[in-house]
């Protein structure tokens, strides 16, 4: 087309010359549709023969579920190949010309599989009428026919020992689907190039190991991921950071996990909760000297809770209690967290710790239905 916005306008509009609007209207693009990643060609262009305008649209289409399921019935050996020639039509990268499937391929697929669909009350996709495709070798129009090394199964299938294709989700699901039961053989994680959780035998991709997201019930996939020195602690992403940098107000782990959960509430026997601040991976009581209500508000907010409801100063009985006290000029620091405002090693004159109760965030309430008297 003459205008660079050709792709949109070509989708069925008359802006382009109808005789070749589909051939030189859009550029070739690499195939990304996972279902068709094992074809003898790897470029396509859109719209395809089913009217989908993009590969994303094709990937969520009805046909992208229908054909893989139909392939399992073994109704036609090259059904998946035919399905892909209309879902992601071949595009010749040199000429940007589209290479359609041959009419015979379409007719064989339809002839063998339409009746199978009929059994379950479904129809062959409407706009795959075969005479839109060229005869093989007719007036030098090239078209696609499967050669002997074409893959019968898509990457989303498992190939049974008998050659049949079943969907990969059926592999090792405890139900044999192949006529030779081969989909329930070699089901160990190792055989499938996966990693096994010791606690529940669950299989995991290797990329999930030590990636900071626990997957095994006992988090074993996130253990033994790094070997830190004695004076270091392991971050969530398994880096090692020295212990005295934990909860100092500056993120040293790349994922900032050394500054997580630095302020908590610890419950004691009579259910009041004391404000606890962590420093160098050790829990400390917070000294009440100079405490203000704005600090209670910051503490509750930092813990993801609502407003503070009760702040009390409780005398501390223990002599050798470890304290964190407020920085002498905490109000001038532009800190965003409470633990940044606290320092270690100072004495607590009042010898009293902070007891704090925070309300829960108010949420999930709907206005009462308005009753308008008439």
């Amino acid at each position, binding site marked *: 087309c003459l205008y660079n916005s050709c792709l949109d306008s070509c989708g069925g509009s008359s802006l382009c010359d109808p005789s070749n609007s589909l051939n030189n209207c859009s550029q070739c693009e690499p195939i990304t549709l*996972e*279902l068709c990643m094992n074809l003898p060609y790897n470029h396509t262009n859109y719209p395809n023969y089913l009217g989908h305008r993009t590969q994303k649209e094709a990937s*969520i*289409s*009805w046909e*992208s*579920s229908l054909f*893989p*399921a139909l392939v*399992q019935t073994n109704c036609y050996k090259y059904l998946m190949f035919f399905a892909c020639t209309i879902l992601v039509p071949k595009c010749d990268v040199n000429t940007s010309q589209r290479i359609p499937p041959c009419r015979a391929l379409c007719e064989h697929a339809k002839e063998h599989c339409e009746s199978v669909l009929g059994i379950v*009350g*479904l129809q062959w996709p409407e706009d795959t009428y075969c005479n839109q495709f060229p005869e093989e070798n007719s007036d030098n129009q090239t078209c696609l026919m499967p050669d002997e090394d074409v893959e019968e199964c898509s990457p*989303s299938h498992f190939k049974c020992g008998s050659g049949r294709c079943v*969907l990969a*989700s*059926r592999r090792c699901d405890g139900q044999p689907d192949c006529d030779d039961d081969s989909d329930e053989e070699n089901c160990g994680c190792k055989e499938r190039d996966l990693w096994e959780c010791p606690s529940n035998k669950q299989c995991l991709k290797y990329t999930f190991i030590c*990636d900071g*997201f626990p997957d095994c019930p006992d988090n074993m996939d996130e253990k033994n991921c790094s070997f830190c020195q004695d004076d270091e602690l392991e971050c969530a992403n398994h880096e090692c950071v020295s212990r005295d940098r934990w909860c100092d*107000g*500056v*993120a040293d782990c790349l994922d*900032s996990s050394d*500054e*997580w959960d630095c302020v908590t509430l610890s419950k004691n026997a009579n259910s009041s909760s004391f404000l606890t601040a962590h420093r160098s991976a050790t829990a400390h009581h917070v000294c009440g000297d100079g405490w203000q209500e704005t600090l209670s508000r910051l503490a509750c907010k*930092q813990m*993801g809770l609502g407003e503070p409801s009760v702040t009390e100063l409780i005398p501390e009985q223990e002599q050798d209690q470890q304290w964190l006290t407020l920085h002498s000029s905490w109000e001038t620091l532009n800190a*965003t*967290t409470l633990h940044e405002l606290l320092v270690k090693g100072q004495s607590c004159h009042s010898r009293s710790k902070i007891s704090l109760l925070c309300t829960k*965030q*108010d*949420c*999930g*309430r*709907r*206005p009462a*239905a308005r009753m308008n008297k008439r």
Partner: protein
Amino acid sequence: ILGGRTSRPGRWPWQCSLQSEPSGHICGCVLIAKKWVLTVAHCLEGRENAAIWKVVFGINNLDHPSAFVQTRLVKTIILHPRYSRAVVDYDISIVELNEDIDETSYVRPVCLPSPEQSLQPDTYCYITGWGHMGNKMPFKLQEGEVRIISLEQCQSYFDVKTITARMICAGYESGTVDSCMGDSGGPLVCERPGGQWTLFGLTSWGSVCFSKVLGPGVYSNVSYFVEWIERQIYIHTFLLN
């Protein structure tokens, strides 16, 4: 929403509309705190530029902004790092607004579940959205009640996709309530004793909603992600230095 009904204004004050010009409404979203919204990753994938998005609250009819409307620009978009487009897993995203919303009876956050709270099959919950109704796209917010089904039963409806612990399934008889295109990112909420509503799911994917094929809607399982959500809000709120 298929098979639902038009919602009364203000009935779902946490429901929001994720919009981008020139098309307007793209996806649903859910207010979880004054400055934070949840939606699904597949709505934002490939369009993670915060500047092209805006979030509209307090609205019932997309075509008639009411007096209660609040619109915010987007400051930060956080897609789950494990989101996988191929299998639509880890389909969740957090959006930070450029400023707090004003909490009113028409705009207020929903509760998040605790990580241990999971939905039992046969529980009834609500889904809402401005998505396809089967014959048209509505202007007015739609709502519908759906029944939670087990993951095993849900897997039996989907051959190509695997149902994972990050998902919840709901509703499955054809002709009953189901979510559809345009509802994505919107809430699946359940009422707790005492009248508080909790967000358990975000509309994510499912069978082709208005075709003859049966199939449940599949929702991102918010309970699975609560710790990640709270962690991200903490990092982007408190660890700014």
